């Protein structure tokens, strides 16, 4: 296991920026890659892509249902299609197109949900996606991925081109530091990445909550509590093997996600664990089922304890039960 890079010693970029740079590089070599946008190329950091590869970008206008339908058609005709739109609109408004035209009809659209979770902060709930894992988990034939850092994002984009199956990739716009400099800690869809080892508890986090989970684990280490931290970037298919192994090896499980506590990573883990007779302490952290507090993404995270301190405190509470 490589050393964990200290907070702020390496400032990463927003995963969104890394996504677009990686996609541009791939698309310059593979002329069959096509990006479809809904007045979203600015927020998707695809302005440079549009300038360099004007033949490989299709602008739809503000019409997300149409975006996904057109993307399904392009994909059916052999285009390696990336439909890029804010996660909130992509997975709510265009849900039926995702269910029928992408998943059910098996058209390999790569759905890219940008500014996911509560990235849009004080723009409010219309712009938050706290439902996307839940609704997409209930649809057959789609892989759901939330990369945590720039490395995971780049790898995910490369794999997305190869996968050739319906895929949902979601990330935010905050700069994300690298989780680890361990070169051997590779990235594969459906396989969680163990970022840190410890026997007392396992923290299974995803997307932009992995970093605060890791910071929380570092704080706990100073108090003699050793946590395993997993970046569970793939929500579906879930890495059952790893979770069940860690369930045996460690004393408790805490899940953390930038999503409603209903229907996301936490409940996916709970379902797996309960059906495998897990009986140790378990808790789901996420955004509770209430009118979401208003503020920036960081303020919302802090409010609901999705911060280093909040996660460390949740671990202490859980271990006392």
């Amino acid at each position, binding site marked *: 296991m490589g050393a964990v890079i200290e907070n702020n010693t390496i400032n990463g970029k927003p995963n969104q920026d890394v996504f677009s740079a990686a996609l541009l590089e791939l698309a310059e070599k593979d002329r069959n890659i096509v990006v479809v946008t809904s007045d979203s190329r*600015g927020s998707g950091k695809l302005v440079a892509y549009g300038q360099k590869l004007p033949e490989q970008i299709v602008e739809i*206008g*503000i*019409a997300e249902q149409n975006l996904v339908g057109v993307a399904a058609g392009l994909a059916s005709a052999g285009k390696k299609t990336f439909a890029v739109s804010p996660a909130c609109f992509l997975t709510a408004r265009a849900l039926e197109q995702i269910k029928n035209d992408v998943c059910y009809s098996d058209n390999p659209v790569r759905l890219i949900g940008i500014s996911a979770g509560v990235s849009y902060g004080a*723009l*409010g709930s219309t*712009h938050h996606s706290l439902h996307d894992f839940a609704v997409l988990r209930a649809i057959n034939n789609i892989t759901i991925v939330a990369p945590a850092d720039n490395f995971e994002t780049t790898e995910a984009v490369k794999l997305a081109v190869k996968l050739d199956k319906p895929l949902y990739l979601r990330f935010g716009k905050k700069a994300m530091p690298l989780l680890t400099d361990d070169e051997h800690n590779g990235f594969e869809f459906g396989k969680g990445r163990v970022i840190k080892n410890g026997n007392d508890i396992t923290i299974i986090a995803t997307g932009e909550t992995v970093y605060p989970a890791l910071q929380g684990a570092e704080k706990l280490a100073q108090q003699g509590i050793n946590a395993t931290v997993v970046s569970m970037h793939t929500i579906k298919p879930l890495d059952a093997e790893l979770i069940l192994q860690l369930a045996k090896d460690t004393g408790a499980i805490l899940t953390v996600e930038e999503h409603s506590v209903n229907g996301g990573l936490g409940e996916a883990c709970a379902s797996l664990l309960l059906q495998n007779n897990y009986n140790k302490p378990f808790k789901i952290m996420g955004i509770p089922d209430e009118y979401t507090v*208003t503020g920036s993404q960081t303020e919302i995270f802090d409010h609901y304890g999705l911060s280093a301190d909040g996660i460390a405190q949740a671990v202490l509470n859980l271990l006392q039960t």
Partner: protein
Amino acid sequence: MVMTDKQLAERSITYRKKILKYIVGAKAGHTGGSLSCIDILNVLYNEVLNVGPQNFTSPNRDRYIQSKGHCVEALYVVLADKGFFPESDLETLCKYKSHYIGHPTKKVHGVEQNTGALGHGLPIAAGTALAAKMDKKNYRVFTLLGDGELPEGSNWEAALTAAHYKLDNLCAIIDNNKLQITGTNAEVCNTDPIDAKFESFGWAVRHVDGNDVNALKEVLNTVPFEKGKPSLVIAHTIKGKGVSFMENSVKWHHGVPDKHQYETAIAELDMEMANV
């Protein structure tokens, strides 16, 4: 209070200054689109709508639903001016735990519907207008759409519903500033001709200079344009209107002025005020 034409025009300038002030305070906001639609909101709330803090709970009040929810700053300054809440509340715009967020919500007194995802205002407005017909009430429903929002299919579905149910108590206004985020509407997704499309859907359509308060007053006070038909006002506006360096520039869709830009903008608006 009955306003003179001069007072009405001055009111728009005052609103523009406040929009900029609170966007600068919040370090966020939709500057260009708020400046383009403020004359429309000014005329609606001061000259057309039968709604205010006193009758906001009355089932007979006129309704205003802002489909282009991102331009909430324009709505906030007008609602504050009408006395729905103290203007000082806007100092909390976009701050932790403030109800004054970047899109309209019913947590703010005077707001009818929570909007922000585009393409929702017209269907809700049609439903509200339909309820008036069912209950034989006289209230009217106005909704404001962005021109970039027209490609959302829900608008066209609602356009059918409104004509089908002969909702002549419904008036949709398009803030036709010809720009969205990526570029011009024509570049992103051409929707022209808007008038012929709506007419063919069974609507009565009028064009107006959407930054001219007198022209707006005249046209908005003549709805319904035709008995038995929903009314559409295509308001030709300038995105960023009133601040020279913001006008007709996509950059200012959600651009926030820095200190110098803010001072320049206020100086320009003060100059305009002196010349009304």
